């Protein structure tokens, strides 16, 4: 049994893998407010918190806290038998895992204004955020990457018939990118079929048919230039 503590929007892959496993979990959502921030500071500086970051999970089986969304997915992947054992598959899996990290990182750069003030800290006086420009550059990059995904997703899931931990990251980033840059996905039949197939997985199917899912959620924080909530 794990209890999940997710306030960042990057936590959805973790929720997907827990849903798929039918593993009950507790969600502790921190609000974006002074109270939420204070609460987070206390959690972050606790002794048993390795390098406090969000999201993190606390595995109530072991009492351990695990931070960093990729590390959490790898940890749960191993726990749930969703981690490949063949060396060549591991390498392929990890290359794709890091590609996803790269894309997520670059999407963040394109949507968050680093020149805003934050709490007591002033904004920049000369810096100016140009979201459209950064989105354009990012779109070029995504356009180069999609054909590679299209080529590799010629099977049901990344490694074969059954999903592995990276599929939970891959579905989520591709779906987020499809919301952000829909034109880049036109004609990518393997990628689009993959997304549909993921939504049909046992247990996940129930989530994707639920009202809560259909309501829609934020992809990025509400203050982002593009946050993805309809």
């Amino acid at each position: 049994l794990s209890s999940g503590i997710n306030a960042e929007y990057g936590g959805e892959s973790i929720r997907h893998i827990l849903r798929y496993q039918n593993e009950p979990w507790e969600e502790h959502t921190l609000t974006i407010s002074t109270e939420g921030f204070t609460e987070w500071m206390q959690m972050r500086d606790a002794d048993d918190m390795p390098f406090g970051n969000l999201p993190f999970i606390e595995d109530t089986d072991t009492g351990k806290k695990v931070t960093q969304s990729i590390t959490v997915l790898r940890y749960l992947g191993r726990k749930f038998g969703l981690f490949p054992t063949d060396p060549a598959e591991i390498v392929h899996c990890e290359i794709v895992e890091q590609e996803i990290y790269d894309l997520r990182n670059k999407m963040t750069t394109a949507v968050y204004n680093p020149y805003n003030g934050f709490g007591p800290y002033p904004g920049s006086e000369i810096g100016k955020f140009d979201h459209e420009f950064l989105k354009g550059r990012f779109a070029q990059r995504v356009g180069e990457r999609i054909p590679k995904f299209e080529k590799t997703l010629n099977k049901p899931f990344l490694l074969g018939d059954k999903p592995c931990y990276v599929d939970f990251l891959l579905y989520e980033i591709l779906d987020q990118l499809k919301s952000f840059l829909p034109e880049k996905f036109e004609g990518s039949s393997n990628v689009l079929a993959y997304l549909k197939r993921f939504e049909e997985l046992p247990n996940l199917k129930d989530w994707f048919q639920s009202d809560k899912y259909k309501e829609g959620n934020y992809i990025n924080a509400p203050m982002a230039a593009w946050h993805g909530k309809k």
Partner: protein
Amino acid sequence: VVATQSSVSSGINAEYGEEMTIKLTYWSIRGLGEPIRHLLRYQNEEWVDNALPPTPASFREYAKMRDQEDMPFGNLPFIEDDGKKITQSITIMRHLGRKFGLYPSDPEELVMCEIVEQEIFDLRNRITAACYDRYAARGPNFPASEKGVFDHEHLRRNFLRRFKERIPKFEKTLTKAFLLGDKPVYVDFLLYEYLDQLKEFLPEAFENCANVLNYLSRFKELPNLKEWFESDEYKQGNYINAPHAYWNGKD
């Protein structure tokens, strides 16, 4: 012992024996490639350092490599090992870690390792975010932004504040010889290099960090690596970021 070679043009065919040797291709800067170089230097095996000078000519050479069929998601750095191409610096480090017995087997140690791996990589990526002007032109087909203005000082200030909150965790963690114990694992090669790059970029954050500073010194004493750190080439200094970056760690 190490064999180092800079490939000059893409017309060179693999020489006899070169297929068996691990070959790293990356820009000649430190950037994301240096942890891989450190790990390969530490091994007692020959390897090839295909270091591309950051010029338009080698960018064209790289573009040709990038678009080849057997290149998964073309990126730099990449290595060629046993005929396979592997991209993504973290994936390369994990692969070489497994290959050379520098990968933890205990599950708890593995989780700790992977948390630190992600943490230090995050921090390296924040150096990149603070040092490259995303609004600048990138050649004739990629004009500059008309509205965007890069403020390096602001980004550095924000990053310094964040890093000053992070470094106490490293100080608390680095109480043994290396991350997990007496012997290094693959993450130590990432940790050394990126903490050292951070020390160049944000020296103020390292005051009173005795454990971290001792860790950096200790790493430089490792067998084989010791020779590298005493070499003229090392002492000459190298770029941390690309030469065109606002802060490149050399000029």
